[in-house]
């Protein structure tokens, strides 16, 4: 079931957070470990026997599935004479008895890490890693001797036992060691100090132990003392990866003899073994190890038979089809195309169809498919919030305890929990977190929503946007009809369902998600699954921890520290001198401004000097930098900052990746490298944000406010230098003028008339000003805007030139923000006007175009689809406090026909119609189809005033005097045409009488076509009628054959009702207009 239409109940409608000038504290949830006990995840005995029974029954289907098994193991693997090398995709841990052979000295329960991956032969791997223990640090109180430590150990153990009464763990705190480390916070002169490394038995105990130490603990001789903990907020799996130098998605090797084949296979993986964490070899992703293993990607989609007028609910509505597409990473063609259907379904060429009589069998077959095919990555569109939870809930309703064994661990059920994901960048989103052990889920809906700003995230509009393809959209009320038809109609549905499974795979390929995400995981060092489910900060934290570990630094868990800190001043924007510039405008950009500032001024946690320390230490002035915001940081001569070092590495790595990219010839290698340089860029830019996230992992507003203050200073400095140097007095032909400046760029009008000259001066200015900055801060000349329409800050448009011969494209910022509550007309109008103004240099033409459009609007000649406004229905009418147009309309439509009315989660398209005087805005909404069918007049004034006037005036005010008067109140607004509605008011009682085709006089007597006064004009009038028919016929043919094309069949009627499709309403209208025009024309046949 696909259509993002009704899937984005919560996610899509959340307003995207505005980029704010002031940085506010934003939520960023802490990630907590959660211990999962192996025994608890496994099915109980009584269920087990049932499962066994079920398994026997489904043997027939198993045989069919077997052909899709993974390639079998080579002899070397079976004989264990070969070291095992694999690309890991997922790392988690489980609590179980510790391994007797590998760890003879320990007993009881321990955390065992599981690494899932694929070898280059395509064999699946499950590696159980033993011996790695959870730990964290506290600073050692001065004067603590070995005896004190063992006493402290006992007290802590006692407190832990108290706090965890339910636990039957024999020991909580395994040991406490003294280590020499240094806190990352603040510049310190001494090299290191003592810290206590507290090693606990299970990962969750880190949190509970931290709580105890935070609150304070009574120690003999020292009294009540609370401790600041260090690195106590690091997830166990990440801790393991950091300590073993493993980054997300890299290759791991376990040498021969170092692994032991598991005694009892717990997983379905082909290679399952135990080993010690110290025996793992982690390969950095270079050369041979930068490649991708041939992992299996399953893309799937389900269809449900909803009841009329309701969104499908798993408690009631059956799953009727599941389409599956399995692709090997790096291959163009899918390995498997399969559809599972409830009831018979006619075959589809090239597709494996499995039909079943009961829904239970369908679900069971799907589970078996997962098991046999053994996908490493499961993708789909909105699977995390719709398809997967639906399947799981549905199986529960049907009492299929054996269904949710979808992971790679035998007899282990998937776990479902509600999760909220929130970050400053993406806002708060609710979602379901479904843990399928050993398989990565990648929901394209979430990924696209995260990485791209679009006006709509329905699968239809996303694929239209990226793949340039409209998708057939079958309304859910039709889905049930198709299901209840025959094998042919169900085949129709299956084709549709398959397409919905195919599109996510194509999006994945087209947007290079696999490459980009794996590279991001490799660069930042987090597991791939973190990238979608967690915010930005974990990525920076992971890099920081890795770096800190090398430097023997520890990172405090300074969560609370940030909360009382307020806001700080953000980036600066030079005032925009609005206007239409017809001379070339050069743009000078700072390359990676914020990272460069941090590097140039050595800004870091460990270089920051507190005001007290400044006084105490009495540092020589040549060794420190005082930032414009008043903070003090030592220079790299005294202490090199960690953040600058990380940034340097990232940027150097990016340079290298870009250089390699140029050299590379193999398209796969290219994809990897391009993904890498992109990941490196994003990572470098997110470091600044990490220090400013006040409720983040390690906020340090001294750093972030210093960065922005330097940034502001640089923009001002640039402006001053440009305007001082490039003057007539300085020997140049014109005085340069800075017309606008944003966060990291400055727009300069040098006054020269040609692009070439402006480019020359731009380069000169960039070089000259760069010389005045500390390295690596660099001002670059990048592009020319010519002509340039500056409306206000962050709103501008212009033609972009990077070489003097030809412009590259039209660039518009902040103008065309295709807001969802705008109709298409606005976008078209604005684009066309900008095009005429900037490219054609034809301002009068643009004005005329606006006038014509407005006139068309008033004369009711506008294509209705341009006027449709769409909003998502998230709650029912009663739940909304304020009445809104789309909710009211949904209510009204429900009264008309409950079956086709939009339900919650649907998007409601509407147009604003003329209504009685004084009608409220929300009463004037109407269903576009209803409007078409009944000839209801739209309200052109609404569109004029509420939709198009503001964006138009914004564009034209810098260009035209009296723009408002000229555009919105001219002669072209005088004539208005309103069609007569056919359904309402007085028209219901009206008698129809033929009127003269020429002059609309009612006809009487024997005249059927024209009145006696119009006699003699027949030829002209006929030509008009027939020309009208000809136009409509042309349109009718184009529209309906296009729809046949989309649906991929000539012999079947078009069913699609995709309201996202630009031609949906036109198609409907063409059909209706055609019928009317033909009737009109037939009147000539007297």
């Amino acid at each position, binding site marked *: 079931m696909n259509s993002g239409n009704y899937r984005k109940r919560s996610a899509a409608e959340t307003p995207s957070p505005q980029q704010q000038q002031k940085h506010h504290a934003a939520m960023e949830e802490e990630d907590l470990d959660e211990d999962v006990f192996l025994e608890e995840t496994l099915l109980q005995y009584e269920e087990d026997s049932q499962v066994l029974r079920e398994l026997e029954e489904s043997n027939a289907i198993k045989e069919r599935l077997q052909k899709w098994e993974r390639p079998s193991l080579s002899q070397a693997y079976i004989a264990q004479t070969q070291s095992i090398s694999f690309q890991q995709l997922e790392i988690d841990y489980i609590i179980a008895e510790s391994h007797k052979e590998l760890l003879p000295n320990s007993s009881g329960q321990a955390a065992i890490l599981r690494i899932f991956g694929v070898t280059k032969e395509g064999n699946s791997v499950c590696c159980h890693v033993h011996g790695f223990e959870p730990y964290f640090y506290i600073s050692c109180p001065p004067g603590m001797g070995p005896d004190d430590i063992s006493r402290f150990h006992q007290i802590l153990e006692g407190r832990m036992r108290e706090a965890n009464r339910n636990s039957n763990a024999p020991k909580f705190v395994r040991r406490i060691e003294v280590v020499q480390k240094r806190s990352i916070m603040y510049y310190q002169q001494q090299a290191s100090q003592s810290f206590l490394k507290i090693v606990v038995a299970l990962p969750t105990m880190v949190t509970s132990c931290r709580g105890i130490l935070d609150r304070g603990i009574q120690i003999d001789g020292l009294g009540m003392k609370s401790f600041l903990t260090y690195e106590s907020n690091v997830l166990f799996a990440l801790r393991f990866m950091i300590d073993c130098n493993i980054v997300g998605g890299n290759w791991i090797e376990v040498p021969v003899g170092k692994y032991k084949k598991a005694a009892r296979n717990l997983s379905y993986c082909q290679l399952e073994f135990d080993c010690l964490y110290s025996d793992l070899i982690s390969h950095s992703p270079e050369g041979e190890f930068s490649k991708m293993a041939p992992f299996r990607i399953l893309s799937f989609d389900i269809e449900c038979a909803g009841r009329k007028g309701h969104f499908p609910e798993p408690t009631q509505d059956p799953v009727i089809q599941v389409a599956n597409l399995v692709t090997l990473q790096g291959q163009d063609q899918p390995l498997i195309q399969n559809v599972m259907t409830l009831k018979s379904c*006619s*075959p*589809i*060429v*090239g597709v494996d169809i499995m039909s079943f009589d009961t829904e239970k069998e369908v679900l069971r077959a799907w589970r078996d498919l997962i098991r046999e095919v053994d996908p490493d990555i499961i993708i789909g569109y909105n699977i995390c919030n719709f398809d997967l939870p639906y399947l799981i809930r549905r199986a529960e309703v049907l009492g299929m305890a054996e269904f949710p064994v979808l992971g790679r661990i035998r007899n282990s059920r998937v776990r479902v929990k509600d999760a909220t994901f929130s970050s400053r960048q993406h806002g708060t989103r609710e979602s379901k977190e479904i843990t399928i052990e050993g398989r990565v889920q990648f929901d394209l809906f979430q990924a696209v929503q995260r990485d791209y700003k679009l006006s709509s995230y329905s699968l239809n509009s996303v694929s239209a*946007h990226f793949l*340039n393809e*409209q998708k057939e959209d079958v309304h859910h009320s039709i889905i049930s009809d198709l299901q209840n038809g025959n094998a*042919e109609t169900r*085949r129709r549905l299956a084709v549709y369902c398959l397409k919905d499974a195919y599109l996510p795979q194509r999006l994945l390929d087209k947007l290079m998600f696999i490459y980009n995400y794996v590279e991001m995981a490799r660069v930042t060092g987090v597991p791939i699954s973190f990238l979608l489910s967690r915010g930005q900060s974990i990525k920076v934290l992971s890099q920081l921890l890795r770096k800190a570990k090398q430097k023997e630094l520890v990172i405090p868990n300074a969560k609370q520290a940030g909360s009382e800190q307020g806001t700080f001043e953000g980036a600066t924007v030079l005032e925009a001198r609005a206007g239409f510039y017809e001379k070339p405008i050069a743009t000078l950009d700072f390359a990676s401004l914020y990272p460069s500032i941090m590097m140039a001024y050595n800004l870091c946690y460990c270089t920051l000097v507190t005001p007290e320390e400044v006084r105490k230490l009495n540092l020589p002035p040549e060794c420190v930098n005082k930032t414009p915001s008043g903070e003090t940081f030592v220079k790299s001569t005294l202490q090199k900052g960690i953040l600058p070092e990380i940034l340097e590495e990232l940027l150097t790595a990016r340079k290298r990746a870009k250089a390699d990219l140029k050299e590379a010839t193999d398209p796969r290698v290219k994809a990897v490298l391009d993904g890498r340089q992109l990941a490196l860029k994003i990572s470098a830019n997110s470091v600044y944000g990490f220090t400013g996230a006040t409720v983040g992992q390690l906020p340090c507003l001294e750093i972030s406010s210093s960065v922005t203050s330097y940034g502001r200073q640089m923009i001002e400095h640039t402006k001053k230098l440009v305007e001082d140097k490039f003057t007539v007095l300085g020997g140049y032909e014109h005085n340069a003028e800075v017309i606008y400046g944003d966060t990291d760029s400055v727009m300069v009008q040098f006054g020269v008339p040609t692009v070439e000259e402006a480019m020359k001066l731009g380069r000169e200015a960039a070089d000259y000003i760069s010389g005045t900055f500390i390295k690596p801060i660099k001002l670059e000349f990048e592009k020319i805007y010519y002509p340039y329409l500056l409306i206000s800050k962050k709103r501008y448009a212009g033609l972009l030139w990077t070489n003097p011969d030809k412009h590259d494209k039209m660039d518009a910022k902040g103008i065309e923000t295709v807001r969802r509550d705008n109709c298409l007309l606005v976008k078209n109008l604005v*684009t066309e006007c900008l*095009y005429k103004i900037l*490219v054609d240099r034809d301002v009068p033409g643009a004005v005329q175009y606006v006038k014509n459009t407005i006139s068309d609007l008033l004369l009711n*000649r506008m294509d209705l689809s341009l006027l449709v406004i769409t909003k998502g229905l998230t709650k029912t009418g009663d739940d909304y406090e304020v009445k809104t147009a789309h909710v009211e309309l949904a209510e009204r439509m429900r009264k008309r026909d409950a079956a086709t009315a939009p339900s919650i989660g649907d998007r409601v398209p509407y147009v604003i119609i003329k209504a009685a005087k004084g009608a409220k805005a929300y009463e004037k909404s109407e269903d576009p189809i209803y409007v078409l069918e009944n000839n209801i007049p739209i309200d052109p004034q609404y569109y004029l005033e509420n939709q198009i006037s503001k964006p138009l005036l914004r564009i034209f005010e810098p260009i035209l005097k009296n723009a408002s008067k000229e555009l919105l109140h001219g002669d072209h607004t005088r004539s208005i045409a309103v069609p007569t509605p056919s359904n309402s008011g007085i028209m219901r009682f009206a008698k129809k009488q033929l009127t003269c085709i020429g002059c609309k006089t009612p006809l009487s007597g024997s005249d059927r076509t024209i009145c006696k006064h119009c006699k003699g*004009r*027949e*030829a*002209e009038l*006929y*030509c*008009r009628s*027939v*020309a*009208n*028919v*000809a*136009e409509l*016929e*042309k349109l*009718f*043919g*184009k*529209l*309906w*054959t*296009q729809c*046949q*094309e989309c649906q*991929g*069949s*000539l*012999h*079947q*009627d*078009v069913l699609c009702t995709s309201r996202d499709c*630009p*031609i949906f309403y036109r198609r409907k209208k063409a*059909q209706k207009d*055609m*019928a009317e025009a*033909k009737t009109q*024309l*037939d009147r*000539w*046949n007297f």
Partner: protein
Amino acid sequence: MVLMEVDSEKNLLHRKQSLYQSLDENFGIQKEVYRGQQYSQIYFARLHLMRTLLYSLIPNWKPHLPVCTVLGLEEGKECIIVGTLYKQMKLKPSILDEYSKERSASPLVQRHNFTHLDDNLVLEDESGRVKLSGCLLPSAYVTGNIIALHGKETSAGEFLVEDVLEAGLPQQIERPIELGEDKYVVFISGLSVGRSSSNPLQFQLLVDHITGHLGDEKEQNIAAQIVQVVIAGNSVEVPHGLLNGQNLGSKDQSRLFEPIKELDILLTQIAASIPLDIMPGSSDPANFSLPQQPLHRCLFPGSSAYNTFRSCTNPHCFELDNIRFLGTSGQNIDDLGKYSEANNNIDFMERTLRWRHLAPTAPNTLGCYPFTDRDPFYVETCPHVYFVGNQDKYESRLIKGSEGQMVMLICIPRFVETGVAVVTEKEDI
């Protein structure tokens, strides 16, 4: 019939006559109504009609092979399938292009041909689609063709074509054996009265010529043997932009009407002496979709007074002395030229006859009325003369069918550009 009076009063030349029978009924859509029907039905009707025909031919073609539906294909099994072709074309323009995000900087060049090397064919029947590979040349076929294919399904799910069967020429009615006397039919197309480049004198010369007002006795003798004039479309050209819904001012009215009036005067001269069939074409004041309906009589107040004046449909079918004529104003062939390839337009014409279908690309790329229960473009009976108007140059060819059918194919050039009318002698056929 009108007598023609030439110079000498005593030596009267009598215009010959023929028995005329109109067969346009099939192309009328007066009784049809737009009821929300879609194009699937005309494809269905076509498939049904032509499949029955092809099935009847298969026993003579490859009797040993089983006939399958697309659904019934089994990998590796040789069989015959029958269905509608669909050509996937990379360059095919789409109405959705209007909505493409990026506006291209340069105006789009109108292409004359949308074929591409990557085009491929798919065969569809009611049960499904299968991609075709093998010996079938995509450039020679178009969407909407119905053919029988011999081949087998490959492991990749494609159908590997080994041999193709087209419907071939239909049955022809018996030609009258004795023709006795010479008779001529004149074909004209593309008069384009009203176009700036049109030369009124040229047309007047033609009219005078065929009506016998010019030439010596020998030529007049020939003129007297003309029994029928057929105008195959594009007789007038109405200036663009005049018909956009607004009431016209009197000046524009005359601009619009002038060419039609001029045409009427000349047609009156023809109709006064020779029977005249006029077909609508793409530039005429008629509907756009095929079949185009007859030009309205009210446009021709002068000539329509004569009963020799007949306004016909496009395509147009008639019989003269039991010789069958079938033709169009050119849209069907022009559309084939855009979506497939051939050496010349006569080849396209020949193909349509061998496919037994005048306009396979309708409705896919050629506008067409959405018929529900029939396909009027199916050629049930083979004509003796098959003509197409508005072509670049005059071409003709005589083709023979397997059952002794003989058809004269004629490309009629645009008169306005070439000044050529085509005279066909019935003896030739």
